[in-house]
């Protein structure tokens, strides 16, 4: 929709992404959320389009996803053969409520910065132990794990003028076995609960990421696969509250979270077929 209070489109410094940040500014990446709701408090959009950040960089360290990388580019990624976790990328991308047409415009960084409970790029990057690289407003940069980046429904650690530069997924996480579960109240709808488990084939570490059913993502780490009771106990202890909105009641979200967690535990406990 038209954002009628916007008087100016500005461009940041093409080298370091800096700008004289003012009240009423907003970063414009894909714009698919910004333009989907009235934004009467905004006066200026800072267009990130021209920064020319390499969308995806594969290296020995892993995968660097630029904040401005479009979902469509991430879906189309050809991953190295030993990245056993790569299917999770497609599964999470397909968890968007929005259609493939939006994927042509929407960005990974935009979804993470929106910090909604059902943001599937949050689920993906938390599960794969992603680290956010943030360009601070006053220069310099800092790194924050994605699970700590998102602090609540529509809340994160960014201060006004801070800019998410990229999310780095370590190669060690990308080489894990994964298991994915999701439910929505409508077919292909918004996630009511989205869980992803990873199992390290080297040291047996199990991680369970709970998202969409909670206000912010949770990642539970176990030195090895727990038994069913152990898993339940940790979930009970570490996730005291479940999210409440029209896409699912808290009790249903809790129920589905516990159900999927056990399914994931069970599936990952099976030996991989040689």
């Amino acid at each position, binding site marked *: 929709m038209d954002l*009628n209070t916007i008087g100016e*489109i500005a461009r940041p410094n093409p080298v370091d992404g800096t700008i004289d940040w003012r009240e009423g500014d907003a970063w414009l990446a894909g714009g698919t959320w910004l333009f989907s709701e009235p934004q009467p408090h905004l006066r200026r959009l800072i267009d990130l389009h021209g920064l020319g950040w390499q969308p995806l960089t594969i290296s020995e360290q892993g995968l660097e996803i630029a904040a401005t990388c479009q979902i469509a580019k991430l879906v189309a990624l050809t991953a190295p053969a030993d990245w056993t976790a790569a299917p999770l990328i497609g599964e999470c991308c397909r968890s968007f409520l929005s259609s*493939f*047409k939006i994927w*042509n415009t929407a960005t990974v960084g935009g979804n993470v910065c929106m910090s909604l409970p059902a943001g599937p790029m949050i689920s993906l990057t938390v599960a794969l132990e992603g680290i956010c690289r943030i360009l601070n407003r006053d220069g310099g940069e800092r790194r924050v794990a994605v699970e700590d980046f998102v602090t609540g429904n529509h809340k994160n650690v960014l201060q006004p003028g801070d800019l998410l530069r990229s999310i780095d997924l370590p190669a060690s996480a990308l080489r894990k076995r994964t298991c994915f579960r999701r439910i929505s109240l*409508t077919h292909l709808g918004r996630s009511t609960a989205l869980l992803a488990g990873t199992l390290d084939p080297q040291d047996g570490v199990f991680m369970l990421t709970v998202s969409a059913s909670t206000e912010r993502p949770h990642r539970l780490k176990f030195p090895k696969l727990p038994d069913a009771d152990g898993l339940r106990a940790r979930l009970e202890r570490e996730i005291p509250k479940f999210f409440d909105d029209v896409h699912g009641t808290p009790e249903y979200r809790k*129920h589905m979270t516990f159900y999927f967690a056990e399914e994931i535990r069970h599936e990952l406990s099976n030996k991989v077929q040689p």
Partner: protein
Amino acid sequence: MSYLVNGKTFSEEPRPGQCLRTFLREMGWFGVKKGCDAGDCGACTVWLDGVPVHSCLIPAFRADSHQVTTIEGLAQNGELHPMQQAFMQAAGFQCGFCTAGMIMTAASLREEDIKDLPRSLKGNLCRCTGYHSIENAIHGVKSVEEDQPGKSCGADLLAPAAEAIVTGKVRYTLDTAIDGLLHLKLLRSPHAHARIVAIRKDAALAIAGVRGVYTWEDVPRLLFTSATHDDYHVDPNDTYILDNVVRFVGQRVAAVVAESEAAAEEGCRKIEIDYELLPAVFDPEEAMSKGAPVIHDKGAESRIRRPGQNILLEIHGNVGDVEAGFKAADVIHEGTYTTHRVQHAHLETHGSITWLDKDRLNVRTSSQTPHITKQKLCYLFNLMPDSVRVFCERVGGGFGGKQEVLTEDICAFATLKTGRPVMLEFTREEEFIAATTRHPMSVKMKVGARRDGTLTAMELRVVSNTGAYGNHGGETLYAACGEAVAVYRCPNKKVDGYTVYTNMVPAGAIRGYGMTQTIFAVESAMDELARSLKMDPYEFRRLNVVKPDDPMIAESNAATDTEFGSYGLDQCIDLVQAAMTRGNGVKRPAAADWLEGRGMAISMHGAVPPTEHRSEARLGLGADGNYHLAIGTAEFGNGTTTVHRQIVSSVLNSTASRVRVIQSDTDSTGYDTGAFASAGTVVAGNAARMAAEALRDRMLNFASKNYSVGRDACRLEHDAIFYNDTRVALTDLFAASRKAGRPLEVVRKAYGTPRSVTFQVQGFRIAVNRITGEIVILQSVHGADGGVIINPMQCRAQIDGAVAQGVGWTLQEKMVFDDSGRMINPSFRNYRIPAYADALERTEIFFADTHDAFGPLGAKSMSEAPIYPIAPALANALTDATGIRFHDSSLTPDRIYRRIFESSQNKGA
């Protein structure tokens, strides 16, 4: 900057925060539609360098130097794109408002995308079709038949607007550019109940471009009702154009007109209002209780039965002796059934453009009732009837939501005040918070039967929540207490009904009009009775439904004008049972947690509205040898234009394509009550039939006289009259009639009486997952008695659409409000109407073989009614699968899970 749209270069500059959708429309590409303006519905889909995008989400400046293709640019060298042809051949549209975006999406799909349509189409919403005909189009199915002379009745003919729809050329309400247009925006109440004590407009008026700020102090202090009925007395006069008391969150407080939408919006933000908060009540039972705040402290002029108790209308009726009836019963079922608040969600939002032309007020609007809207404007602004013109272009869906004056009054007021053209376009959010909804109802049911299954007594207490204004609250209550009860033969019946004001968004007319609510209750209760008697539900209905010789009695023995013009309920029951017994081979998902169940429900529906309904058809032979039909009813995807052409051409032994239809314009058509309550085929259709019969007779008589031959020697063929063996082309007949001073033109009026009834039977077989609460529809069967079906393809598509809408209302959609009466999900993202992925079941549709005594060519109405049995048939199937009765009509997985969980806990304890 330069913009390349459909191969043409434009030098216009967008505003910094403008989206591509409005920029394209400003340049005249009106094929780009607004359904939600938020990226959810896909009606605005265009291609950017060949890639489909939702243009409402694309910052316009980013299209600079890129190629934009809209629906208008899809055809190449005058040749329709194959996908446009496919949508025509399959009639893959109804109102057509989503079609441009649907085709732009479908035309971009690769073969592998077409194999996964649930995903590929998830960004395109259609409210009319249920997606079946769209799927047919994408798969290249041809549904449309040839238009052959004299054989149009019963043929699957294409809507006359088809080509304009698939090319994006068809004009909807706001698809026009008008010089000097002012934009109107409404400031809406943040409070559920408050009195306005002070208004400060100065800051708003000081904004550059603002031309007027209007509040209750500026408008005529004249009570009216926003509902549109021929007889306005059936609705309460409880509404002002703008009021000093607000009664729901979202009510109009002030209107700002400005040179741009931006200035009008800013004006709304700058108006300062001081409110005195008043106590609010949201629950109708509480609103009727002692001490509840009085919402309308009004006198008899408002026609509110008991304003002090917030009761708009009450109905109390009694036949036989229910006490005795329950005493005679071997089984009794009691339960309270509730229906939740849902919305029409037509893709075109409400909107109007008004202007003055030589002091005449012109109103171009998205309405189902242009003629009544005109009357209302004359009343409100003290205007002579001949100084007002109200007309509709094609309307982008209605479902009853446009049987209401929601934009025209304030827009006309601003035009009369400023002398300027004014446009008001609702946002999608305004559709949810400030248009109308279904009436939530609570129905306390008690039904009894003998061991052999015979009903002995029925008792209903119906409480309807009309919200802050009464509009359709009275008529929907009469409907609710009518056919749902009358369809059962039972000697003892008692009905008490109340329509109650609360501080909620007003409910209004919507497909089903009060009856989906009571049918949910009655059909659930009948299912319970059959279950406790261990009777087959079809057999139970056969035993207890009214037969052609029975009187139709709801709560009173008084005579009515409703009669069986035809009767096909028995056939519908047989057809659905046979198909359900046959099965369709679809198995439930393999996992052990999936349960399976079957359910059915029936309904009866008055084929014409009970209150006054009339229509006038003007039909003549034109100089071009074609027939020209002018009729006041509106086309909003209901397909009546096609049906009227078929009726007329059938009588005149011609082809439908020779009938040109002018409609929904008060300047060029006679009075018509409007397109609602299924009146398009029956009432307007009867006017068209009578006009066609009269014109045929006049043409034959004229030929007989003019050529001095016996009338028996003359016969009418599709493009000529023959006397003996001489052929006179219709163009020559026209010329001869002019020369003789005897124009071949006729006018006929039809009235909606007597009223026949239609019938529906729906069967579902579903799978439900006892862990997740998810439902999968395995089989859907619908039996319909619509008399002679004039266009089976269209009629099936209406049923497909109604089933999808009913499934959406039941399994997905729910308007949710917080404690202060504010809706928390006013967007398609959070109020989920069915997408293609949600509507995969293909309903097997069967028609009863009947011929109605009252309807045109034996036809009855059939587009509203198929929604009635959907919710109870689903709920009954769910009960069959789980053993649990669901008393509320909202059956989402989280609610289903909860009941299954509670039930297992109870069993455990």
